[in-house]
């Protein structure tokens, strides 16, 4: 906590002179630079659209494109509806009502976040498929083949799995909204004569919209770019086809064209979301209410609330976690050695640094938007967050290319000037890796900070300015107390995401910087899923640390 504050102060110190007057201009340039950083890889991917279409594109168009689009859209629509319902319901229950176990549920329900989607996908198939314990037991019980068992590897199956894995994004942000204003909104609406149900629907829910929409948008982006879980389900989407075009048909060009299509889809969603709350602003007078009195649920109602939370927690986290724990125990001897500790510390270090940098950048981006409320700045900000929607490996290449180009050209210059061999400066260094993480995960941090910023009204800034509080002080003394939950959420989401991240880490890590996710890749690529359980468990446990910290230091109690 303290480290972050110091970090932040130093960070904003770069942009404000002591007077704080020229800060706005600096921040605008900053937003421009940041969007440029994302823009370069995007241009590289989009440039493929102008290349002549080859035979492969024709082949895809004729044979598989309709299936891909159908699958992709069913997936994102299904998963966004699913996460919306589960995430909002859980957030509402745990932030407004009191029932047995609420305190524990309120943070444990966030735990699926730490579990990579492909782990849940793999475990669920292991348990529910033909060879798994459930069907085997039923076959033995009946002494024959089963007449009917729902197909696990189906559209509905993958939607359910992804919903369970991704609902915490919505839960986390929606809870943030309800905690700060839910009950008050509810009370006001009820005092105006609404029933509790319609008070929820008419007042608290619409007020929480920026948060919920931000969460769902993250879910959509994550679902679109997912490769692991959909491959386990053998569910063909645009992303699996991107990889196929690249790895199997050897056409990075077609892969980039498909990726451009993906980015366009995401951009449409972003615009749609923005359009839907055009000219709506969400202000919160005064400071956040920390402790609210909870409404006590009694009898059947409290039992249902308890049971609902428990069920979700069980299937989304506890059962898969126990399963990988059991596998990890069987593989602990072969996996746990000196090297493992190095890998673990690499993961923690990278995720920690990346989380702080990314959250800091996102904060400045949002802060800057307050002084530069023009269309261009808005566009820069939107572009800056597109990196999250791209399949990791495609983004990794697009990031690598400019770095390699810089290296190759710098080398000629340096060589000519000094007559020495300079080696590589960017590609294959931590600078490249952390930049890549920033490009990828800025959306995650930005969405959670930006939605919190929606409730800091501009009049607050004005009154602060009239008292001589501007620049870094405005951020530190006025904004931070209001939006600190959003900042915490941003740090956690990025931390956990970086821990799980695979393709970018694989492609841009320096020698010797293997991480837990890299280890999982090594093992699963040869089908050794059971051995991969230990690094998976470690990722989950390491992800729990920031979730716990969040509980301790914020109002998420």
């Amino acid at each position, binding site marked *: 906590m303290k480290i972050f504050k110091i970090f932040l102060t130093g960070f904003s110190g770069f942009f404000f002179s002591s007077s704080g007057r020229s800060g706005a201009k600096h921040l605008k340039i900053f937003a421009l630079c940041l969007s440029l950083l994302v823009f370069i890889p995007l241009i590289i991917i989009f440039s493929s659209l102008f290349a002549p279409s080859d035979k492969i594109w024709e082949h895809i168009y004729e044979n598989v494109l309709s299936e891909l689009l159908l699958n992709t859209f069913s997936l994102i629509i299904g998963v966004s509806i699913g996460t919306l319902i589960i995430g909002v319901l859980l957030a509402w229950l745990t932030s407004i009502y009191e029932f047995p176990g609420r305190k524990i549920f309120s943070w444990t329900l966030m735990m699926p976040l730490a579990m990579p989607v492909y782990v849940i996908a793999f475990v669920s198939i292991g348990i529910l498929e*033909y060879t798994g314990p459930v069907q085997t037991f039923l076959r033995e019980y009946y002494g024959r083949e089963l007449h009917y068992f729902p197909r696990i590897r189906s559209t509905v199956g993958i939607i359910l799995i992804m919903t369970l894995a991704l609902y915490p994004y919505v839960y986390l942000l929606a809870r943030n909204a309800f905690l700060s204003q839910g009950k008050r909104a509810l009370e006001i609406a009820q005092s105006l004569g609404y029933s509790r149900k319609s008070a929820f629907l008419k007042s608290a829910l619409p007020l929480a919209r920026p948060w919920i929409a931000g969460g769902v948008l993250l879910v959509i982006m994550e679902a679109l770019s997912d490769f692991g879980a959909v491959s386990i389900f053998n569910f063909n989407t645009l992303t699996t086809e991107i990889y196929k075009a690249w790895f199997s048909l050897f056409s990075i060009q077609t892969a980039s064209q498909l990726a451009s299509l993906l980015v366009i889809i995401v951009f449409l969603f972003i615009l749609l979301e923005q359009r839907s709350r055009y000219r709506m602003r969400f202000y919160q007078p005064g400071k956040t209410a920390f402790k609210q009195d909870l409404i006590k649920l009694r009898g059947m109602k409290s039992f249902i609330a308890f049971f609902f939370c428990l069920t979700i927690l069980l299937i989304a986290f506890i059962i898969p976690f126990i399963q990988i724990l059991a596998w990890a125990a069987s593989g602990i001897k072969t996996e746990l050695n000196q090297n493992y500790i190095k890998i673990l510390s690499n993961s923690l270090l990278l995720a920690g640094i990346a989380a702080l940098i990314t959250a800091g950048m996102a904060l400045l981006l949002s802060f800057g938007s307050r002084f530069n409320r023009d269309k261009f700045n808005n566009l820069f900000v939107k572009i800056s967050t597109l990196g999250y929607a791209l399949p990791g490996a495609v983004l990794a290449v697009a990031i690598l290319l400019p770095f390699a180009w810089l290296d190759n050209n710098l080398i000629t210059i340096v060589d000519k000037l000094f007559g020495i061999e300079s080696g590589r400066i960017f590609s294959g260094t931590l600078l490249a890796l952390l930049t890549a993480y920033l490009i990828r995960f800025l959306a995650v941090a930005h969405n959670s900070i930006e939605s919190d910023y929606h409730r800091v009204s501009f009049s607050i800034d004005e009154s602060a300015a009239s008292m001589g509080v501007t620049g870094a002080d405005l951020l530190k003394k006025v904004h931070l107390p209001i939006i600190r939950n959003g900042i915490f959420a941003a740090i956690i989401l990025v931390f956990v995401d970086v821990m799980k991240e695979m393709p970018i880490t694989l492609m841009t890590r320096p020698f010797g910087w293997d991480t837990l996710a890299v280890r999982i890749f090594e093992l699963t690529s040869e089908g050794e899923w059971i051995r991969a359980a230990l690094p998976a468990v470690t990722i989950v446990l390491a992800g729990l640390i920031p979730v716990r910290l969040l509980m301790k230091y914020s109002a998420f109690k």
Partner: protein
Amino acid sequence: MNSKQTIITIKILLIITIFFFSGCGTDSKNELVIYSARNEHLIKPVFDVYTKETGIKIKFVTDKEGPLLQRLKAEGSNTPADILITVDAGNLWHAANENLLFPVESEILNKNIPVHLRDPENMWFGFSLRVRTIVYNTDKIDPTELSTYEDLADNKWFKRLGLRTSKKVYNQSLVAMMISEYGIQQTEKIVEGWVRNLAADVYMDDTRLLEAMAAGQCDVGIVNTYYFGRLLREKPELPLAIFWANQATGGVHVNVSGAGLTRYSKNKDEATKFLEWLSGQTAQKIFAEVNLEYSANPSVEIDSFVKSWGGFEQSKINLSRAGEFQQQAVKLMDRAGYK
């Protein structure tokens, strides 16, 4: 901000800066850099022995073939990599085709590695064999019923066949080699027959397929032998057995895990020496045994467990065909509805 905070901020930034540049280092002469699609736990044992024997350090990164090739391409003449290792021939062919590899003229390699397991122009060499053959459920099938990959398209296997996803390169190579042998039309008929005969949706990997076969969801399937070995070593009671496919008609399909020298290696002599060493007795034995594969060098003794599966005739068609026909194979499988 006050001065104490400033100092701490500077410290933090300094630490980060140090981390940024810790990745840079000059490539010394006594060091080889390898980009490998073969996993760490399958290659590191080999590297360790080499370092011990020669004192030459080996730095490596692992990734999938696609990103590794792209990385080589982007880095161009500035690449730190000396050697590229893959787990299939198709990607090596593709790397050579993209002008990323450099030919190695070496009598040792030519002597140790059979002709069909290396590139005709010496761009790459196979170092271990990955044999893809038929495995069946011994409770349900008599091995006399089995013969070839093509036969699995026959109606008698209706709803009895199990396959792994067509997205895996092993299946793409198998179909590519079939195209080179039978032509597109005939191969497409065979693949369509396979799809018709599927007992369940295709599986995500060979282990899942083997387990489904043992549980009775399907009777017969096509897998790489080391997956069979790995599973049977843990659960010897499973009713599964290997059948060597196409023994009367050209031999069973093999692929290789192999390597090539990168075009812009700054250390070509040392790298060539390493490749030569890889084809020798010591390395070959470890290279194959860590994963129950077969050594490419035929003079190396086979692991006793692997040997117990019996001997076989292997297809002698040059593996560069797997790369040449891979694109067509993938398209063909798409058309046939093999997912």
